[in-house]
């Protein structure tokens, strides 16, 4: 009885999902299941929505081109509702019930560290596509987002040359903010500057009045922000409302990832410097085609294709490339194919897997916020994940499985 009902539910769910994902006829073979686990509701949905859209587009493009290995791809999207317990449950379901070939997902480092052990345990390949603090070393996992050595290292000297040597750092109070701010401090000191203070804010703080006074008292040359999430946007508002934007400029490793530059008015954030792998306005033919098809699929008025969306798109493409090379979706074969240093021509430029770290070698760009757009100022080709590389070598130690806290 139980089994019957389960089978029934599975088949109806599969039918419904297939109908939505792709209307083209199924190949005779079973489709390849791919899971996405991203927050679509709750506090983190501003990041999750563009990621799911990018993943959807990537899967649809692959299916339109005939699928992988002659099989269609079935995308199963889970919404953990910004709840860690559901992350665990959905990772278990994806691995055991859907028997997916790969899981793309996780937004915060917290959610990654929740699902990573689950997917390790059940031998399921895992792609984490978000920029993060670096240091994860796990043969079962690939990280397509940028890490501090790729972006902070470039942006710190650029901003210091432009504005001065005294840098006040404010950051979100969790792993990402704590570690990233240490990297910022390291590079500021290396470039002969000083950091009078690093302040941390829990993710739900909305009142920054006292902090703004403290920053004024410290009189820095510029402020470095590693603030995260919807509540922290109020810092930029209050900063501008206090008339500070014109006197003390700002650089950030997180701004615009959640479309902050669109939510805020130009008066509140123009002139801020950021550094990422992808900007929607990058001028290259691959990107122009990509943006066109993205807008065709999700509407011309789509606010902005974010860094995280591109990470997810590129993550899926890298995986698909490896599947083609391996001729199989088997986990180990795909890992081995990826470890040959698979490379794709992505909208952000050339993206290559770095075999020892399972991170990516990719282009980064410094851009300036200008009237709700991100204007690219300078390009840096093919940056290596040097931070993680200092501690992690999965070719030598394939059984390594941890997140290193990199000594700075």
């Amino acid at each position: 009885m139980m089994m019957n009902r389960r089978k029934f539910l599975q088949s109806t769910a599969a039918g419904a999902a297939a109908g939505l994902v792709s209307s083209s006829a199924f190949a005779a073979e079973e489709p390849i299941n791919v899971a996405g686990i991203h927050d679509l509701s709750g506090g983190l949905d501003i990041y999750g929505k563009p990621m799911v859209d990018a993943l959807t587009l990537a899967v649809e493009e692959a299916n339109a081109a005939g699928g992988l290995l002659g099989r269609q791809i079935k995308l199963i999207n889970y919404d953990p509702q910004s709840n860690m317990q559901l992350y665990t449950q959905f990772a278990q379901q994806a691995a055991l019930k859907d028997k997916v070939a790969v899981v793309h997902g996780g937004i915060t480092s917290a959610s990654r560290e929740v699902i990573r052990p689950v997917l390790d345990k059940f031998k399921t390949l895992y792609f984490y596509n978000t920029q993060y603090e670096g240091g994860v070393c796990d043969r079962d996992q690939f990280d397509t987002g940028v890490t501090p050595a790729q972006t902070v290292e470039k942006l710190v000297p650029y901003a210091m040359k432009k504005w001065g040597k005294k840098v006040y750092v404010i950051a979100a109070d969790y792993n990402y903010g704590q570690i990233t701010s240490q990297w910022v401090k390291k590079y500021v000191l290396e470039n002969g500057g000083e950091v009078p203070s690093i302040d941390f804010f829990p993710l739900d703080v909305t009142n920054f009045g006292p902090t703004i006074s403290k920053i004024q008292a410290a009189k820095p040359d510029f402020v470095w922000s590693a603030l995260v999430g919807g509540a922290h946007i109020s810092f930029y508002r209050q900063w501008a409302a206090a008339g500070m934007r014109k006197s003390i400029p700002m650089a950030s490793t997180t701004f615009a990832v959640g479309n902050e530059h669109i939510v805020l008015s130009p008066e509140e954030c123009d002139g801020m410097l950021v550094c990422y792998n992808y900007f929607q306005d990058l001028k290259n033919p691959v990107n122009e085609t990509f943006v066109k098809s993205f807008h065709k699929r999700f509407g011309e008025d789509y606010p902005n294709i974010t860094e995280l969306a591109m990470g997810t798109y590129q993550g899926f493409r890298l995986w698909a490339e490896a599947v083609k090379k391996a001729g199989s979706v088997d986990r180990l074969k795909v890992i081995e194919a990826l470890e040959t240093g698979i490379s794709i021509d992505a909208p952000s430029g050339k993206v290559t897997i770095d075999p020892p770290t399972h991170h990516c070698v990719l282009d980064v760009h410094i851009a300036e916020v200008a009237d709700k757009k991100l204007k690219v100022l300078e390009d840096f080709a093919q940056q290596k994940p040097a931070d993680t590389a200092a501690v992690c070598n999965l070719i030598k130690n394939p059984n390594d499985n941890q997140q290193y806290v990199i000594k700075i």
Partner: protein
Amino acid sequence: MDLVALLAIQVLYAVASLALISVGLAIIFGMMRVINLAHGEFLMLGGYAAIVATSHGVNLWIAMLVVAPIVVGLIGVVVERAIIRFLYGRMIDTMLATWGLSLFLVGLTTAIFGNTTVGISAPLGSFEIGTYRTSTYTLFVIAVAIVVLAAIFATLRWTRLGLIARGTMQNADMAAALGVNPPRVYAVTFGIGAALTGLAGAVLAPVSGVFPTIGVAYVAKSFITVIGGGAAILSGTVSASALFGAINQIATFVTTPVFGEVALLAAAIVLIRLLPQGITGRFFRRGL
């Protein structure tokens, strides 16, 4: 010295914003014993109402001070008629229903507006105190809080509506026997509470931004303020906001926002332990 003046303004601002976000809940809880867990979402809706109005060309001040309270007040009346009125005298059930309402409103606004909503920035610019700069809008928020509280005082003290409200609050059966229609009083009260909440949400929108899940940041704080204040709507809200707002802001300035928050919460526990009926259970008993 400049810093002290600046800090004083910020403490005042913290007190004012706490009073603003709590007063609507205080009216609803104080008069009707309804714990409105969707209170945070009413604030959020006030913000959205202001944003939508301004993006359709309405003047910012009218959008914040007129449109937002009217829209959220109407929503409040609808909610009262559709849900709350079946649940009077069942405090726990109103909690569950308004929790459901809160989830529903978050879901609905996400479906309508998406996650990326262009906000409104604070008008009025900034001014200098010695070497420090701060936002003029801060003063505006303080002024709005004072006006709102004064208006509530005047309404309760001198108008017929206020008299009826106070009577119903003290003894609904007796008021009904004297010809008052309690259901109507309740609907109006809930509407006014919601309208004030919408106003607060709109006034704070340029400071803290608007997104569907922002309500969570407010609901616990305003709930604690209302209970800490005790039964009297006005003096309770004012005294509790003054106490908690000052503690929170000073602790935040001296240490970190985390300790600011913890200091506020710890103060609330100590307060309720010492004065189990809230501040106005002991002091200002004859207050409104």
